[in-house]
């Protein structure tokens, strides 16, 4: 039995080791990234607020992240009396697990479309449902939050979890709808193919053809990561700490790590789907023979990491530029703003693609829905104002008749 297993392993080893290596890279990098993203976020927040930020531990405070990690590892494990213990422990694990699992199909470096063998910057190369699987898995992370909120047996945690669930369900729709346009242009769900379709020149990047889709995608992605301005599930002023009120120590860190993993995922997706991923003028695509060399691979990796860090910086800066939404505004934005816009945009893209119209018309499909939305909104407001004024006249005349 064991012998057959070992034989199997030896036999499959050439296919197995690149996967294991990629998993090892992700498992090694993501917690480290999460640790240092907190540091970068604190530092950036400090600069925005005219402060200095952490600068005591190590040069420029660089060891602050390590000190924080160490401190939180050594913390006492507090289990409140009133929690459902099994679910209470399950929730943070679930949260981080789903966040990490979504990284399986995410290329974190240049991946050729004609994959043959050897190490590649992705755990599972050539998955034909790549982006679909990624969205499916990452929306599972709502479970971690809702289980955590429920297990805490505390109304603030529960409110946070409910809000989070509603937010996830609402923003999942515009997120998916905005991606469909991109998928339709590339003609594939495979992320490598989507990037490859953008790699001819800088004008092939989806941001130029689908700016509205980018806007909708980025907004919904921010909501999916529970970041400001959409951090309703954990807004301190109303909900103490939201779903992680009862969590401390290493369990809290798992939630935190999941959140930062989500930010990384979303930033990667934005860069891959809309900013051409690893493609950059001057660097040949890894699918071509000359682009498959190690130098170009590493250059592509650098380009991708640069693009991703720009998106991460934007997400962190947005936190200090925008106030938090009220909950009804949050729901209104998704259901009354983003979903109709995304649908109209998608229909436009579908018309342009299926009738083989020139590609430039894609921009029109992005701009037209916005204009239409604006005019319908002004019409609606005007009619509401007219209605209100009629009502007020009516009530005034009634009031006079009572006198």
């Amino acid at each position, binding site marked *: 039995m064991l012998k057959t297993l070992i034989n199997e392993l030896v036999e499959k080893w050439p296919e197995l080791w690149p996967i294991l290596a990629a998993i090892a890279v992700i498992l090694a990098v993501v917690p480290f990234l999460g640790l240092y993203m907190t540091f970068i976020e604190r530092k*950036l927040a*400090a*600069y*925005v*607020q*005219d*402060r*200095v930020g952490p600068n005591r531990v190590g040069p420029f405070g660089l060891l602050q992240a390590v000190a924080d990690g160490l401190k939180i590892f050594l913390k006492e494990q507090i289990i409140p009396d009133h929690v459902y213990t099994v679910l209470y422990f399950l929730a943070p694990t679930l949260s981080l697990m789903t966040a990490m699992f979504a990284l399986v199909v995410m290329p974190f470096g240049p991946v050729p479309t004609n994959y043959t063998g050897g190490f590649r910057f992705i755990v599972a190369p050539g998955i034909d449902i790549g982006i679909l699987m990624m969205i499916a898995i990452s929306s599972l992370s709502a479970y971690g939050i809702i289980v955590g909120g429920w297990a805490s047996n505390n109304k603030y945690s529960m409110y946070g979890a409910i809000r989070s669930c509603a937010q996830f369900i609402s923003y999942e729709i515009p997120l998916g709808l905005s991606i469909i346009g991109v998928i339709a242009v590339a003609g594939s769900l495979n992320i490598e193919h989507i990037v490859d379709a953008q790699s001819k020149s800088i004008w092939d990047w989806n941001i130029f053809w689908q700016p509205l889709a980018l*806007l909708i995608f980025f907004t919904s992605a921010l909501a999916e990561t529970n970041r400001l301005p959409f951090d309703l599930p954990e807004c301190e002023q109303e909900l103490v700490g939201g779903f992680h009120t009862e969590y401390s120590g290493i369990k809290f860190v798992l939630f935190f790590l999941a959140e930062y993993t989500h930010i990384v995922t979303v930033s990667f997706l934005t860069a891959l789907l809309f900013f051409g991923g690893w493609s950059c003028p001057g660097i040949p695509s890894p699918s071509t023979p000359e682009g498959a060399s190690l130098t170009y691979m590493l250059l592509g990796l650098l380009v991708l990491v640069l693009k991703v860090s720009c998106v991460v910086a*934007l997400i962190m*800066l*947005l936190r*200090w*530029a*925008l106030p938090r939404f009220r909950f009804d505004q949050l729901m209104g934005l998704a259901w009354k703003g983003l979903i109709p816009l995304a649908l109209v945009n998608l229909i436009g893209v579908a018309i342009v693609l299926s009738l083989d119209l020139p590609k430039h018309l894609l921009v029109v499909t992005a701009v037209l829905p*916005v*204009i239409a*939305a*604006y005019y319908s*909104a002004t019409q609606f407001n005007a009619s509401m104002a007219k209605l209100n004024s009629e009502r007020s006249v009516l009530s005034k005349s009634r009031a006079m008749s009572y006198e």
Partner: protein
Amino acid sequence: MSNKKTKTVKWGEEPKLGMLDALYLPAIVSGLATAVRHAVSGKPTTRQYPEVEPEIPPNYRGVHRLNRDEQGRVKCVACYMCQTACPANCIEIIAAPAPKDDPHWKDRDKYPATFTIDELRCIYCGMCEEACPVDAIELTSVYDLTGLTRKEMVFDKEKLLSVFDETVKTGKDPVRTNRGTLGPASEEAPTGRQGPPPPGRGKHG
């Protein structure tokens, strides 16, 4: 009823949003621009406290000190004015007659044998300073007063005098110091005269 009264209330009108404004994008971009401007300005308003100390104004009311006169003696004449004035009852003085046979003390009648201030009970109102006829007690700009025990925070005469030595050395004299124009009781009595000086003499008379 009159036109004047009805016109006092002004109703604000919501500004009309243009097409771009309705997208929120200009507002978001200007918000981001503000954030970036502050981030790259590189002028933090915070101070690195233990390394960079704040500039304390000279009229700050911090830790007390007992002043010395030119001969290095405690300037206090044990008149109990500060103890009486103190609203927090934190000053305790035990007076003693000045050693008459010592030529060093021949111009003084009384001096404080002990002078203790409970720095924890003190409310730093500065009334002792106002009450003192000889400007012997003063509040300095020393603000970082810490201690590990309550006992440590009860300052005796030696400790208060050492605060004077420290603050004089660093050149951080309180702004209220009346050096040179002190009350009559602290001035050296004219030779051959005994008893209190006649009223109306000197600045504090």
